[in-house]
């Protein structure tokens, strides 16, 4: 059973390599909950204390108040020590082993501090661990048990129903298939040939199954070897339901009619069982029989159904299951083996927010989504600490061979500040067959480097490094690194990573990020935000905004860097995908980007994520320089780009201090009727040779205004939701009318944490930020 973690109830969170803000179990939900614990508007301001212990730098780690680097092999000792100390405090003794802190670099003081924080927040603390190791999870459970987290921050009464796959039985299945015991195999929603370390074995076993059916949306590695492939409708073409957490039933509705001849799994099964029906009928029928009786709120089924469609979910109550009690025997019998390293480095396999386990590999938007940490696109790579790279005399892009004795993989090196010296990290989800089609992506010209070479895939498959151990797949293991002669470019959207300029060029910090600590903030809400300039103006304000005056505020304390806004903006605004080479040439077209800055020493960096889009300056430097008036200011304060007037001098982009303008270097659009269905009809498709940039989703503003006019009501605060704002799980982005004194934005603009980037230049940007508050000493 997977419990439902309640981050919203936690005051102290300790994560062991659990990337719960990035990819772990339910990151969107967790991000929202996590942000509820970090509420600075309350009095006194409240912020959970988050410690992240990990080897690589994850999205979650980048947001932690205290980040400690440790290898996965050390987790046992660390958890054991924490458990033992908590036992001491609780006055019990069940642990059979004593922690030997000599096996870890993490100091006793650091751990003791964490333990005292955990203990003082007893009942409101939460320890989570991403390692797929029963023994570690027993320790974590024991710690949570000692802390009284069960029933508080860990909800067992309403467990989570996500990620419930049983790895052990997959191996059994392979044995059975080999043994000829399986005469028919139905495969849906998984791709074992690709994602199992012994995928080849599965493939061979699959050949021995006389009848195998693969249900899939795209031709994948497993489907290629099945006897029958059933093309599945995309989830946006079909009806379905789900129950991510006990009692919360959600409906998936189709957004478009089906593009091809496809069926959903439900339809296939119903057709084959002789009761052919559409997925809509099947779903309604199911809800009538199974969901409707479980609730009392709606007397009429149609009411329930309508409610579910409007809200997206319904809540039902099933008879509570008997909560199982904590099995102390598991703790008593716990045996931790001290890690015997057989290689030089610990390989950590992780998932990226865009590609996840590889399920999104065929999606070019997500391939071109910059990783929140490395800012790299279209590839996986070997991340290693900069010190390690220096020691091995490796530079970014040098290809190394990683081997664990059985498997080998060749990938380029990417020095990653904040990573443990002994850890190298490789992303899963790459090397998919479906990515061979990207050989033609991006503009075609003489010096073009293809995103993938003919017959090659995007990145390499790292699944073969997963290890079966006691029936579970382990995401880390010992490996060796061998340099090769080869190099491979890594395309990144940001190549200078520090908020300070290089040491030999002055080494000063740029005041673009303003930050403070919770302690300072509690004393003075304007702390860390004192970099104010007196701006003298020669002229009277000649452009007075009498109607709306739009503005945006982004809370740096809330942004986790997850990059959902980047993709939603791309989808909303018809932003083309340009391919790896173009990104390498620094020509990606994303209208919103998330600048990720490091500060502090390379081995222990602090990270900040800063979303940047067009700042819609009231004194916009771009507007004055355009010779043909292709960029103008609207009477509502929007910096507008008039595409069909633009002749493409790029002067505006040069003069933009925030560098948010994007140029159409080539003609990116292809005549592909199917592909072009993805385009938003409300947004102009831009041609070659013109400038574009964030329009603040002007189509949404116009729509909301028209709607209000039609209804004869005043446009209310929050009626307009920009794509980035809408998709932000942390609610870090707020958009509104600053001429309306009651709007959220008006209040935020006068918040002591509010500042504008480069305010001393008097560009008067209408995008502002709220300073970053870290809960640290």
């Amino acid at each position: 059973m997977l419990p439902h973690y309640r981050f919203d109830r936690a005051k102290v969170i300790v994560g062991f390599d659990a990337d719960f803000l990035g990819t772990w179990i339910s990151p969107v939900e967790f991000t929202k909950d996590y942000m509820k614990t970090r509420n600075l508007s309350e009095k006194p301001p409240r912020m959970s204390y988050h410690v992240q212990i990990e080897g690589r730098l994850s999205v979650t780690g980048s947001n932690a108040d205290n980040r400690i680097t440790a290898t996965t092999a050390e987790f046992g000792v660390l958890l054991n020590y924490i458990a033992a100390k908590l036992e001491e405090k609780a006055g019990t003794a069940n642990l059979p082993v004593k922690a030997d802190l000599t096996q870890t670099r993490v100091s006793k003081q650091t751990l003791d501090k964490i333990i005292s924080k955990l203990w003082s927040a007893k009942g409101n603390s939460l320890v989570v661990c991403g390692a797929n190791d029963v023994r570690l999870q027993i320790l974590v459970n024991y710690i949570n048990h000692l802390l009284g987290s069960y029933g508080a921050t860990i909800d067992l009464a309403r467990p989570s129903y996500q990620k419930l796959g049983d790895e052990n039985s997959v191996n059994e299945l392979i044995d059975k298939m080999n043994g000829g015991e399986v005469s028919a195999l139905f495969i849906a929603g998984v791709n074992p040939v690709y994602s199992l370390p012994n995928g080849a074995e599965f493939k061979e076993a699959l050949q021995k199954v006389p009848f195998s059916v693969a249900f899939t949306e795209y031709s994948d590695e497993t489907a290629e070897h099945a006897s029958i492939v059933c093309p599945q409708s995309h989830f946006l073409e079909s009806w379905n339901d789900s129950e991510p957490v006990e009692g919360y039933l959600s409906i998936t509705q189709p957004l478009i009619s089906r593009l091809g001849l496809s069926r959903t799994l439900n339809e296939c099964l119903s057709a084959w069982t002789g009761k052919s029906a559409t997925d809509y009928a099947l779903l309604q029928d199911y809800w009538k029989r199974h969901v409707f009786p479980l609730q009392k709120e709606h007397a009429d089924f149609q009411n329930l159904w309508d409610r579910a469609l409007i809200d997206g979910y319904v809540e039902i109550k099933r008879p509570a299951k008997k909560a199982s009690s904590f099995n102390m025997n598991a703790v008593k019998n716990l045996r931790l083996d001290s890690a015997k390293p057989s290689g030089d480095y610990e390989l950590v396999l992780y998932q990226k927010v865009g590609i996840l386990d590889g399920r999104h590999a065929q999606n070019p938007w997500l391939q071109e989504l910059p990783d929140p940490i490395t800012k790299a696109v279209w590839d996986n790579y070997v991340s290693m600490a900069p010190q390690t790279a220096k020691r091995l005399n490796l530079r970014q892009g040098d290809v190394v061979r990683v081997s664990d004795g059985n498997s080998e993989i060749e990938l380029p090196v990417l020095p990653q500040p904040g990573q443990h010296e002994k850890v190298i990290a490789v992303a899963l989800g790459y090397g998919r067959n479906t990515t061979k089609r990207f050989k033609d992506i991006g503009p075609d010209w003489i010096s073009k480097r293809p995103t993938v070479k003919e017959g090659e895939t995007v990145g390499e498959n790292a699944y073969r490094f997963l290890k079966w151990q006691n029936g579970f797949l382990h995401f880390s293991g010992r490996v060796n690194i061998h340099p090769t002669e080869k190099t491979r470019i890594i395309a990144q959207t940001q190549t200078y990573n520090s908020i300070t300029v290089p040491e030999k060029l002055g080494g000063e910090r740029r005041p673009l990020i303003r930050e403070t600590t919770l302690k300072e903030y509690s004393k003075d809400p304007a702390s860390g935000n004192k970099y104010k300039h007196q701006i003298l103006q020669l002229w009277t304000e000649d452009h007075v905004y009498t109607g709306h005056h739009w503005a945006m505020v982004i809370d740096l304390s809330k942004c986790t860097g997850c990059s959902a806004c980047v993709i939603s903006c791309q989808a909303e605004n018809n932003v083309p995908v340009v391919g790896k080479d173009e990104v390498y040439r620094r020509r990606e077209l994303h209208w919103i980007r998330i600048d990720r800055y490091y500060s502090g020493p390379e081995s222990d960096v602090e990270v900040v994520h800063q979303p940047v889009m067009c700042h819609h300056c009231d004194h916009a430097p771009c507007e004055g320089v355009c010779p043909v008036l292709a960029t103008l200011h609207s009477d509502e304060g929007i910096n507008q780009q008039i595409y069909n007037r633009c002749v493409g001098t790029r002067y505006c982009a040069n003069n933009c201090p925030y560098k948010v303008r994007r140029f159409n270097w080539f003609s990116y659009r292809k005549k592909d009727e199917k592909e072009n269905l993805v385009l938003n009809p409300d947004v102009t498709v831009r041609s070659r040779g013109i400038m574009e940039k964030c329009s603040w989703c002007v189509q949404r503003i116009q729509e909301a205004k028209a709607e209000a006019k039609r209804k004869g009501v005043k446009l209310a605060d929050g009626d307009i939701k920009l794509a980035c704002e809408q998709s932000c799980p942390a609610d870090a982005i707020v958009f509104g009318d600053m001429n309306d004194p009651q709007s959220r934005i008006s209040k935020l603009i006068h918040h002591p944490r509010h500042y504008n980037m480069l305010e001393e230049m008097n560009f008067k940007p209408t995008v502002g930020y709220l300073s970053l508050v870290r809960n640290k000493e």
Partner: protein
Amino acid sequence: MSIYYSILRKPIIAGDKKLKDITDDVIRPLEQKPTLLWWVAFLVSLTVLLIGVVAVTYQIKVGIGTWGLNKTIGWAFDITNFVFWIGIGHAGTLISAILFLFRQRWRTSINRSAEAMTIIAVMCAGIFPLIHMGRPWLFFWVIPYPNLRGPLWVNFRSPLLWDFFAISTYFTISLIFWYLGLIPDMATLRDRAKSKIKKFVYGLMSFGWNGSARIWHHYETTYLLLAALATPLVLSVHSIVSMDFATAVIPGWHSTIFPPYFVAGAIFSGFSMVLTLMIIARKVLHYEEYITIDHIEKMCKIVLVTGGIVALSYGIEIFMAIFFGNQYERFMFLNRALGPYAWAFWIMISCNVLFPQFLWIKKIRRNVALVFILSIVVNIGMWFERFVIIVTSLHRDFLPSSWAMYKPTIIEIATLAGSFGLFFTFFLLFARFVPFIAIGEVKGVLKYGKLKKNLTSEGSVKANADVTV
């Protein structure tokens, strides 16, 4: 037996030239068949030009993406080349207009070719703003005229628009000024022409010039007026070009010193280019007696002075950056001097500040080979100056997240080469079809510095011969 020289002034034209000799010397290359050297030079230039044409055609067909620009660096080779060529184009009008007004009569030997150089350089320059547009076929949108598109007007606040006016005005005036000076020589050509076609063509081009005093009077009045009109343009064109940068907000661009600094730099590079061309021309066309060592020395002095202004401007820029207290400005300078493009900065400093100092030495000023090398060095330096101003300012501006590097593509290099191809192709055609030296004007200064001339002189006399009274 000897020629008498003034003790106060050296003669401008060396040798014992008669008026007819001048006409013969200048027109000789036009009446002969082109030499092998000319053909080789012409075909090489034309080939390079065609390479440029191919590159530009490809770029216009496929997109600006064929250049090495990116989201951070929106201008690089294109505008560098533009400013470079505009700068080259400065010397001609300066020589013909400002030096004319200042009664610098030595200008007569070089003004024709320097003006031709100006016109060709401005043509080379003018191509770049055109092709750097994302949609060059819509270039006419920057022209303010009553149109059917609204009418949509242009943005009079944009320096790019001022550029358009400044350059087109400069080009027009330069062309008219050059052609006006050409009219008497066209008449000479007409009078010497043997074929009827030539006579007709030159006749048309000389506008019926008859050499009467009245015509000369009109001609010289017009010339003076045009010189007065062209003079402010010499200063305004590069001032306005500099405003492309000065009015922007980017550290390294946003600077009030730019207009004078750019004008000085333009004259500096323009005179260097004149030196380069004249040193070749006097050798190849045997004009050593017209374009004497004294001419070269005088031009070297102008290079030295303008180079000094340029060096001073660099100094002031650095001073302002370091002592002004703006962290972005300070960083911009440190980044230029020590950052990833430091090599370009130090090429600029050594070529524009260090090497020209050799010109303080008279022996070097009078050493044709050394001056030739230095003139090329200065132009390399001045090209890099524009590259440094444009690229190093853009590549690391306010937000470190957007910092990027620029590397030219083969298309850009071919385009730069093509602009040189265009320049030399046209210049060679000029040397072939138009009198290289203003015959009428040189005749006017023939006796300058010569008190008495022995009509029975034998052989040539060195211009620097000891003064005998």
